[in-house]
């Protein structure tokens, strides 16, 4: 007696079912390739420029005792060499000294109003570094200087 071989039953299965499976496998491959191409999303540093958060009347006597809350003016400028120079209340400081002073001020009184006034030639990266540092110190008010047009 001849026993039928299983091969006959499989022939049609092999021919018909492999193609959709390959389709799906390729689609999965394309899906993961495309998904990995995706752009890195931007991160954000929030800034509020409400009426109290922009300063137009600079310079002024920021050490005046009449002010209920202390104000600190941080001016930034950039030398020809590209190096950042900073003044804190018109006193030249290094970036390390600035960080230390701001840290001390934040610990003493977080209500201290920090006014950042970068010069036009300062790089955005230099500004963002100091702005982010001020935000991390949890100052309640970080203001950006606005230059009045003449």
């Amino acid at each position, binding site marked *: 007696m001849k026993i039928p071989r299983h091969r006959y039953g499989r022939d049609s299965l092999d021919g018909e079912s492999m193609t*959709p*499976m390959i*389709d*799906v496998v390729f*689609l*999965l491959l*394309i*899906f993961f390739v*495309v*998904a990995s*191409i*995706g*752009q*890195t*999303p*931007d*991160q*954000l*540093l*929030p*800034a*509020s*420029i*409400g*009426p109290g*958060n*922009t300063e137009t009347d600079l310079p002024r006597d920021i050490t005046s005792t009449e002010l209920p809350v202390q104000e600190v003016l941080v001016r930034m400028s950039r030398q020809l060499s590209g190096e950042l120079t900073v003044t804190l209340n018109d006193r030249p400081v290094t970036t390390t000294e600035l960080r230390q002073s701001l840290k001390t001020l934040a610990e003493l009184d977080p209500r201290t109003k920090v006014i950042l006034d*970068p*010069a*036009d*030639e*300062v*790089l*955005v*990266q230099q*500004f*963002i*570094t100091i*702005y*982010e540092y001020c*935000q*991390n110190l949890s100052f309640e008010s970080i203001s*950006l200087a*606005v*230059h009045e047009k003449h």
Partner: protein
Amino acid sequence: MRLPSQSARRTPLKFNITPLIDVVFLLIIFFLVASHFVRSEQSRPVELPVAVDGKPDEDTAAHRITVTLDRGGDLYVGGEQISESDLILRIQQLQAAARTEGVEPEVRLRSDRLSTFGPFRRIYEACAAQQIHRIQFAVSGEQP
């Protein structure tokens, strides 16, 4: 004579889900690729300034404008280069539209890390002049 019942004639129904999976995956890939191109068209690629503590983008503002400032000081909105006066006009329009709907407008500033602060300042000054208080600086969490 015995009539064959209908159930006996009916072949067992086979539901092949493979084409369905094919179509679903194709649709997913289509939308992924489409959204990728829409995004890259709307935002000109710049090297964003690096900040360690940037917050993730959780878009909630209904009225928002994204301004891109490249290294040369050129301004782009929606992938299109515009002048400073056009930008001020756009900001005015944004404020007017937001005021009509009673929502707070937002300006997102994407600046190249090596661009100078002058044009950057003029953008937020224009926002301040139009009473737009909500500004976001786009930053990158990755070191160059």
